[in-house]
């Protein structure tokens, strides 16, 4: 792990009409670390992630990637930088098999339009293998037949496959049982150990303390704390989420 952040958002703000969804937030993640992003509902987690993902632009602030200032105008820019977002609904097509899903929209072809199935199958296997995903019986199985944990693994493998450097996971364990949560957390850890920067959004502090290196806490659209996991407790994080010190109190400006 290096100290230099690969993704660094500096002073980003976002306003939706009268609602200040994000205010002057600093957020960074380093290579080889798992950064947890926590906060109550409406704290601005999704707004921050969607801004990075290129769903909409931030009103203010800068994004630095690998030390350089970058502009993100759309999801394509994010993907080109090597940032992949795995949304909560995973966006998998149930009727397609694992390989087809992993390559959806970026199929390998021969002579420009004929699918190169063997090549895709090989790459898909190699990626799953590198993540030590052993729970999937066959890469030619349709996704509909997979469990929640396996589907998450496919979605993550899909994100990792494209030489990505930052992977953002939105609530990856929310819908999973105990054993499957275990698998996904192991997967998250392995990704970071392989030199990826991983951002994980979760409400489950137990999961976060198990897998994260650092924790960024948002409250009412502002960043209230960045905590080292080793040097903090669940109580401290809960306190930051519910009563962290704000720079400005929302509505103060108008008074």
């Amino acid at each position: 792990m290096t100290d230099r952040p690969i993704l660094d958002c500096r002073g980003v703000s976002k306003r939706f009409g009268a609602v200040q969804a994000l205010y002057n937030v600093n957020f960074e993640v380093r290579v080889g670390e798992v950064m947890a992003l926590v906060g109550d509902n409406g704290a601005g987690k999704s707004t921050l992630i969607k801004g990075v993902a290129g769903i909409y632009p931030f009103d203010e602030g800068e994004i630095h990637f690998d030390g350089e200032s970058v502009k993100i105008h759309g999801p394509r820019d994010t993907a080109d930088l090597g940032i992949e977002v795995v949304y909560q609904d995973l966006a998998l097509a149930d009727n397609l098999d694992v390989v087809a899903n992993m390559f959806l929209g970026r199929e390998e072809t021969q002579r420009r339009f004929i699918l190169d199935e063997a090549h895709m199958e090989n790459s898909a296997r190699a990626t799953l293998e590198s993540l030590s995903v052993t729970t999937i019986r066959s890469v030619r199985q349709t996704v509909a037949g997979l469990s929640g944990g396996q589907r998450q693994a496919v979605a993550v493998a899909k994100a990792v496959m494209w030489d990505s450097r930052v992977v953002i996971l939105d609530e990856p364990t929310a819908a999973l049982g105990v054993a499957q949560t275990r698998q996904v957390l192991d997967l998250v850890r392995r990704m970071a150990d392989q030199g990826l920067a991983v951002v994980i959004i979760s409400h489950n502090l137990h999961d976060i303390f198990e897998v994260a290196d650092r924790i960024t806490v948002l409250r009412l659209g502002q960043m209230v704390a960045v905590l080292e996991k080793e040097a903090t407790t669940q109580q401290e994080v809960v306190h930051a989420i519910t009563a962290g010190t704000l720079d400005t109190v929302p509505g103060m400006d108008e008074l």
Partner: protein
Amino acid sequence: MSATGQQDRIEPKEGFTADDTPQTFGAYVTAWLVRVRSGDLGALPMVIGLIIIVIIFGSLNETYLKAVNLVNLLLQLSGLTLISIGVVFVLLIAEIDLSVAFVSAVGGVTAALLLRPDDPGFSWPVAIGIALLVTTAIGFIQGQIITRAGVPSFVVTLAGLLAWSGVVLILTTQATTSGTIIIQNDFVVGLANNFLSDFWGWVLAVLIIGGYTGTELLKIRSRRKRRLPNKPISVVVTQIGALTVLIVGVVGYANSDRGLPMAILVVLVFLTFWTFIASRTRFGRHVYAVGGNPEAARRAGIDVARVRVAVFMISGFMAGVGGIVLASRLRSVATNTGGGNLLLNAIAAAVIGGTSLFGGSGRVASALLGALVITSVDNGMGLLGVNSGVKFVVTGLVLLAAVLVDSLSKRGRASSGVA
């Protein structure tokens, strides 16, 4: 990476064993049985249904199983199959096209009008080309309205059904007082009235078997090269053997009568082409993705609207091809062309053949298989001389049975967690 060897020692982080491709003939059959039991029926209900149909009608009427009737059957199913291929694509993206029957009529009428001697007396390639251009454009317009305005395809194509039936009526009655346009072009009439000689019939048989064998071998070689597991060679040989028996049987039997109709050649060409497009190209993959999860397709960077419009264009194009073959069979078009139960049969054929109404699942070949079932029933009842009322009831029941199988097997798949 042999699956059987490594599955005995389960050491999760030791390596990747993500494959359970059956390695022996027995294992392959067992895996197939497991799939069927869990509700993944594929073409099985259709094959069983077809066998039952053949046994029933074969025992009720001695002409049914004769070679002359096989050739008739092939003639009867050609136009329907061609239209139904387009319907399969539409169903794959979980939409519906109710206009196909009258669009096919527009295609047939356009070709017939353009071919009238001296008025304007176009040559057949030009007439057919313009007719197909027209029907493809109709698909384009309907597709644009569906995607741009977000109107359900059901409503847009229902409007199309009415409008195009009107256009057929206008065109036929404007051109002639009787409302019937006779086609005199030898090529177009020959499509459904000429037959391949015995020799060319056998050439076609060899091409089909050789083509299938060739693609299987190429697949095996490409997978071998990348050290991917293949299905056992005994299974491949059995499949090729079964196909050979079937093709040789059909061609030999048809040759003992008039031979294979030209129209069947047209069907096979389009069947092969669209099967290739659906299963081997990026576009085909995107069609399945749009049918399975449009949101996932959109986020993967697929232009969902473009895929949808393209699919409606395919539907229009194939309706045009089918319409010309149907017109050829009757040697004419008339005010009632495209009417009757052509639309319902075209949709029913796709569904009976195994294409899901829920989108994302099905094969182009299901158009042929479904048309075979419908035409077999129709043809059998025709020979028995039952009245049209009974015909409609029976065809309706066959369709209902097919949809029930689709729905129940989907439920079976969901409950067993296999799809």
